[in-house]
Each structure stands twice: as structure tokens, then as C-alpha cells.
């Protein structure tokens, strides 16, 4: 059985949070905001590519803009597969955290 990796989880969640506004830049910003850390661009794009390849997200072509060198914006959406994987990982997360005794650093 295959679980999402943490990175994939974070990226998928970012896309879900952004809903219609999820394209490369905004995903990167969201991810950075969520985790409070700087992400190297490769650390986002590589898993994103993998998610795309595995069918967890799909692309939607947006309008071309001059500041992107005339390229279209590419919006990302979760596919049902992606949603399913997120739900699954949420359950796994919940269950692995279930019954954890009080966790403290001495």
C-alpha cells in the first residue's frame, strides 16, 4: 500500500486550500506559509511533477500574462484520486496519533 509522503501531503493540502487560485507560484507561497520554512523551488516542482504523473492533480490552462513571458498560468486541481489519497492520509495520521501518551521533552 502506498501513502502520500509528507511533502506530497503538504503540497496537495496547499492546492486544496487555494482552490481556484492554485498555480505554481501561489502553491510555493502557500507551502512556505504553512510550514514556516523556505522551500527550494525544486523541492516543490519535483513532487508536483510526481503528483501530476501519478494522477493526484490535474492541470487547467489559465490566461497568458506578460509577466510570465507570455505563458499561460497553469492552475492545479485535485483529482478524485488526490482527494481520496488526502482523506486516507488524514485517517492514517489520526490513527497513528491516536492513543499517544503525553508527549513532552524532559
Amino acid at each position, binding site marked *: 500500500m502506498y501513502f502520500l509522503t509528507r511533502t506530497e501531503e503538504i503540497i496537495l493540502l496547499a492546492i486544496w486550500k487555494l482552490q481556484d487560485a492554485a*498555480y*505554481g*507560484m501561489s502553491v*510555493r507561497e502557500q507551502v512556505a506559509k504553512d510550514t514556516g520554512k523556505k522551500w*527550494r*523551488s*525544486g*523541492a516543490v*516542482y*519535483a513532487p*508536483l*511533477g*510526481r503528483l*501530476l*504523473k501519478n494522477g493526484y492533480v490535474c*492541470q487547467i490552462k489559465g490566461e497568458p*500574462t506578460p*509577466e*510570465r*513571458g507570455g*505563458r*499561460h*498560468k*497553469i492552475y492545479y486541481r485535485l483529482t478524485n484520486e488526490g482527494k481520496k489519497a488526502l482523506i486516507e492520509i488524514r485517517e492514517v495520521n489520526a490513527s497513528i496519533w491516536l492513543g499517544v501518551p503525553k508527549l513532552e521533552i524532559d
Partner: protein
Amino acid sequence: MHRSGWVCQNWKLTEKPMNKISKKPPKIARWMLEKMINRYTRYTALGDYEEEYGDDLKNKGYFIAVLIYWSHLFAVLPGYIQEKLSVSGTMLNNYLKIACRNMSRNRVYSVINISGLAIGMTVFTLIIVFVLNEYSYDKFNEKIERIYRVGFENFSQTYLAPGIGKEIRENIPEVQKMARFKIRTDYLAKYLPERDPDNPKYTTIRRFCWVDRDVFDIFSFEFIAGDPSEALSVPYSIVLTESIADILFSEENPLGKTIRINNTNIYTVTGVISDPDKFHIDFDVLASFVTLGKIIGEHELNSYRSWNLQTYVLLPEIHDKTAVSNKMTEHFHKILKKRNIFDLYALKGLYFQGLGSGRYGNLQFIYIFITAAFFILLIACINYINLSTAKAAKRAKEIGIRKVSGSLKRMLVSQFLLESVLISAISFLAAGILLILFIPIFNSMINSKLSLASLNDPLTVIIIFGGVFIIGLIAGLYPALYLSGIKPVSVLKGDAAKGRKGVIFRRTLVVVQFAISIILIIGTVVVFQQLHYVKNADLGFNKEQIIHFDLNRELRSMRGVFRERLLRIPGIRDVSFSQGYPGRIYNWESFDHKGERTGFAVFSVDPEYFDIYDFELIDGRKFSRNIRSDEFGTCIMNEEAARQFKLVDPVGTVFYRSKWGSSSFPSKEVEVIGVVKDFHFESLQDEIRPLLFSWNEGWLWMANIRISPTGISETLENIRQLSIELAPDFPFEYSFINESFNSQYKSEERFGSIFGYFSILAVFIACLGLFGLALFIVEQRKKEVGIRKVLGSSLSGIIVLLSDEFTKWVISANIIAWPISWFIIDRWLNNFAYRINIDLSVFILAGILSVVIAVLTISIQTFRAASANPVDSLRYE
């Protein structure tokens, strides 16, 4: 509506400065990213990066934005490698590990490879820095594309009369701005500090420059203090360079302070510019022509009498240079009554044409250096290729096993490429350290101020990094293909590739290495021979024990007294005053004789000059103080001058000055009273040109003093005392004539010494490679040597046997190198009008030298092999 108009304007304002620096991200980086980002996210990522670049440009500045954009490459690189080489991270790890193990197992070979490559890269980077520096001259000018120097066609005249500039400004509409430069040397500047007036500060201004005030509109000098538009607008104002301002004012603010120049006029400092080190004219101080007009008279600024100004013009954005110069030609045809073809020389290339005063570069040197640096790098790469293919036998088993366990050929190729890139990366680090160590030495050698700071441009850094990568690839490509081509069956069966294949290829490469080294050796030797020749050639006059120095203003006015007092000093044999010294003397004037017009070098001297320098008089007589008329309109010519005018019996001939220019001849007619034998008054690079000596007391600006060879330092001290007594405000500096004359060859000398170092390095790297190869071959033939020894071969016999092959290589390298080097050197020598003939002995010497060096290099190995106990090599069989 109104509001939106305002917004629009505002937007334009913010947009405008950004147009200057490109709004688009760097092209190369974009292209590389496009190739490297994985195809699933390529489109979106590229767009994102570009958007981000736009934001960074606004918020963080150009430099950071470019840097960030480039840094994306590093982020995508690992993924790219993985994808392209179809090598997983684990395998990549394995490759690195194996590479490191290999390096540490074969330490000698690794050291040879790395040190060779490191030296090669150091030289290469040094040369890149040097070349970048050379090309950076004058580039600080924002309007560089529009600035031209006015001159005549074929470089025939680069110094113009003041009137030319004035006419151009007033009558050629295309010329927007015009500035003339008139350079005077060794002015004395004096500053009385307000707080401490008893303690004046002095400095000699080496190069004092008179300019038109438009100069700041044409050239973009960087003002540290003062306003460029106001700086020279008032008469008697002056602009200092930073270093002069530092000397005179140190902590004080120079603006508004007054300084006294040559103890006469007082100037107000209205500006300080940072030292224009990268400007082709060398100057320390700028003062305006308006002031000059007040001193020497307004009409002088419009005259056509003295031709000693450099004139620059600024043309509009869109201009037709030839049309403008044609207009000038037409315009001056009327004024000068003579048709001179004007030409405009673009500022861009001026530095390398070397016709200005001050700084110039030499394109030929640059090309030769680049080529040499490239070849040194090539030699180092060859070392790598040779050693790694030679060592193939050792790796054969590994390769065989890898192949059997399913490695593809391209995986092996990528493995070996990775190894070579790793080696070149290590070498690059070493080169970086070497570079930091050697830059000061290199600087003192070529007398420059290079620093690694010129590498702060991100693009240059990337180019150099890319270069390293590419060098690694080039060096690694052949070995990679060769090694990955080894057949597993043959390896595992036992008859491993013993490195037989490729022996011929390796041999060829070694021959190439040595051929290059030999060419460099021969080149160095000949360059030094030629330099020795020109420095010690018989110049046709006596140049020993003569000192010369410029007469300062005070001494000039009391020449007579000075001479008398000098002659009283016991060590002084003779004193003469002249316009200059051989090597730096003359005006160029034209004369008419029987309808023919010829240009002559004209040189003003006094009668004693001929005694000091021992010129050989072949006809007529010298100037005489007893004949009053000698000072007016007589001359002594050299043989070449007589030849130019086709004079059979020159003495008594009268010819006429053509109109132009100021002259040391007061009258129009000039009578020949004597002829001296030809002598070299210029560098031996040039033919002896026609020369006239005139005698005009007003033109004598330099003292020539012959001193006796004993007690020189005492005599010099006496002269100094006297000079300071008579002219207390001026420093006393002198030089010996032979040194001054030979300083003409400074750039050749520098060239020679750099070339010398190059050849030493080339030989060294080539020898490193040879050493490694010898080590390998000797190892391979260990058993053979053992058997031979057991069968009774002698020590010397085995050494000869082992050295034999190498000697053959080096000799064939010689045979290739000789004609090539002859060809190159002959071309270089042709720069000199007086040159040595290339001697066969140079070639033979270089040949013997190379063989000796090669044999010595391998002798350690051969001797060790030959003297080894055969038992050790044969025991295990």
C-alpha cells in the same frame, strides 16, 4: 480622466529605469532551465520563475534577481541528472564512492591529474581576468557608442591643432559636443592649509590636462565631489583626481579650496573625480581651455600652429560616421588650403590602437596569451586522458562486472564523466587557491591592478563554472567512451584489455603535448634573444653614463647659470640641453625641396649635444657657439634625411618649411650645415627615419649630463643639491639614458617574461603527464625487466630499453614543433625593423633540452625498475 493620466505617468516613471536593465531573465539561464526542468512541470515552473524574477527585480534589485534566477538551476540539477542518466540516487552515490576510492588508491595519478589541471585552470582564469580587464577600458562611458576621436585617415595624424576642434564645434552640425585634450607634464601644485599656512603641501602633477568643459558631457567621469555641469565653467577652476586630492587635502574637503600651480596661477577646486584608471588618456588634473586662453592668449586656442591636441566629438544617437568625417574633410579643405582626409576613430577601439597618450593595450599579446593559456589547459587535459586510458586495465574488471550485472553503456559513460567532472571540480578549488596566491605576482609582472573583484559579475562566474564543467567533460569524454567500450567477455575471460588499444592514440597525445611545450620554449628563447639584441645593439651613439632629466620651470629660466654650476662639479664631463632624449624626442614637420614635400623628425639641441652623444659626423660641421647664424635656420641632418631629399652633396642645401605647425626653426628657410651618420633615435621596432637637428634655445627642456664612471653616486648627489638650491620647490628626478631608451621595450620584456612562465608551466605539466605514463609503463613491464635481469641484462641496458620509447616520442615532437615555431616566431620578429635571424642552434638547443628533461623525468622510474631485485617481480609466478 485626470487621475488615470497621473497614474499612467507614474507607472512610466517606475518603468523607465527598468528598461535599461533587461526585464527578461538571463537568456542562457532560461534556456538551460528549459532543457533541465522535468517535463511535467516545465511549463508552469518556467512561468513562475519569470514572474518571480519580475517581482525580485522590483523589490530586491537586478543582481539578486539574476542570482535567484540562476540558482533555480541548482535546484533542478539533481532531478535532471537522475532523469537523463537514468541513474538512481543510490547509483550516483556508488559512483561517487568508487571515484573517491579510485582516487585515493592511485594517489600519484590523482595528484598528477589534479595539479596539472589546477595549474592549467589557474593560468586560464588569470588570462580571462586579464583579457576582461583589457576590454574594460573606456567602457565606463555611457555614450561610448557615440564618442569618436578626430584624426586623419590611416592614423597619419592623431594630434590636431586647437583650431580644428573649434571649427568642428561651430560648423559641423552633427557634432553635439566637442572636447580637446592638451596634456602637459610635471606641473607643481602647492596648497597652503588654512589652519597651518606655514606648512604648505606640494605634489608634482605628472600629467596636467587642459580640456574643454564639455568633456564631462562626453565622458562619464565619476564625480566624488562637485557638480559636473558647473565644474569647469569659471576660469581658473580645476578638477582633481581622487589620488591627487588625497595627497593635497587628505582629510579636508577639497571643494572651494585654492591651489597654486607652478607658483604662478591660483586655481579653485570645483570637483573631484575618482581616478580614471580605465580611461585611455592618463591624466591627474583637468583645467579648462578658458583658463588656458587667459594664460596664453585667446587667439592661440583657434590657431593652427601647434599640433598637439587630441580632439573628441560626441555624435547623435543615430549617426553616419563617414558622412560626418567627409564633411570635415570638405570644411577644412577650404580653411587649410590643403586636402586632408579626416577620419573618426570610435572610442570603443581606441585603447587597442594605442595612439593616444597614456594607456594602450596590445591585441596581439592578448591573442597570443589566450592561445598559450588554451594550450596549457589542453596539455593538462591530455594528461588526464592519457593516464585514465592507460589505467584502463586496472578498471577493466570493475567495468566487466558492472556490465554483467546489467549496467548500460551510457550509465558507464556517465559514471566516468562524473569522475572526470569530480576531478576537475577538485582542481578548480585548488586553482582558486592558486589564483588568490598568484594574482599579486601576476600583477607585479604585468604592472597592472587585476583583482578577482572583476569576477563579481554573476555571468562571468557562471561562465567559469561552466568552463570547469566542460573541461571535465572534454577531458573525460574519450576515456569514458573508451572504458565503457571494454568487452566484458574478454575482461572476465582473463585476457583483459591490457591498455594495448589506444597506445598509438596516447603516443600521439604525448607528442602533441611535447610539441606545444617545445614551441613555447623556442618562442621564449627567441623573444629573449631579440630583446637582448635590441637592448645591446649599436645605436650609433654613446649611451653610457649619461643621465637626463626634464628641466623644471625654474631651471629652464636659468639654464646658463645651471650649466656653469654643473660643470664645476668634478664628476661631470659635459652638459647639454635638448628637446628630449633618443627614444623621446621629436616634432614631426614637413619640408619642401624642389617641389617635393617630405616629413622629417625635428629635434632641437644645443652644440654640446653632439659631444655628449658622440654622433659620427660624416659631412660638414656641427653647430658652433661662435657662429651666430647657426641658431637661426640651420640644421644638421641624418643620412636618411639626405636620402629622402635625394641630396648628393647635402651641405649648403637650402630647403623650406611647409606651412603647418609650430617649429623650432625660426625662419622658413633651413640650411644644411652638416650630416651625421644614421643612428637609432627610436625603438628598433622602427626603421631609422629622416631626422633634422635644429638649434633653438627656446626649445631646450631637458638636461643631458655625462658623468664619469667613478663616484657616480656622489656626483648625482651633487647634482641633486644644486637642483634643489636653484629650484627649491621642485623635486629632482633623473634617469640614465640607456635605461630610458630601453624602457621602450618594456611591454616586449613583460611579454617575454610572461611567455617564459607559460612555457615553464607547459613543460612542467607535460612532464607530470610523462612521469605518470612512465610509472605506468614501467609497472607494466616489471616482469619483463625481471626476466631480462635474470638472463643477465645490465642496469644501463634496461634503462636504455625503458627510456628508448619516450625519447622517440620527444624527438618526433621536436620534428613537428620546429617548423610551426619557426613560422610563428618569424611573424613576431617581423614586428621589428631590426631583428635577429632565427638561428638553427635555438631549435637544436630546445630539442636537446626537451629530451634531457623528458629522460630526467622518467629516469626515477626507469632507474627504480632497473635496479629492483628481479625476485620481487617474479616471485609470485
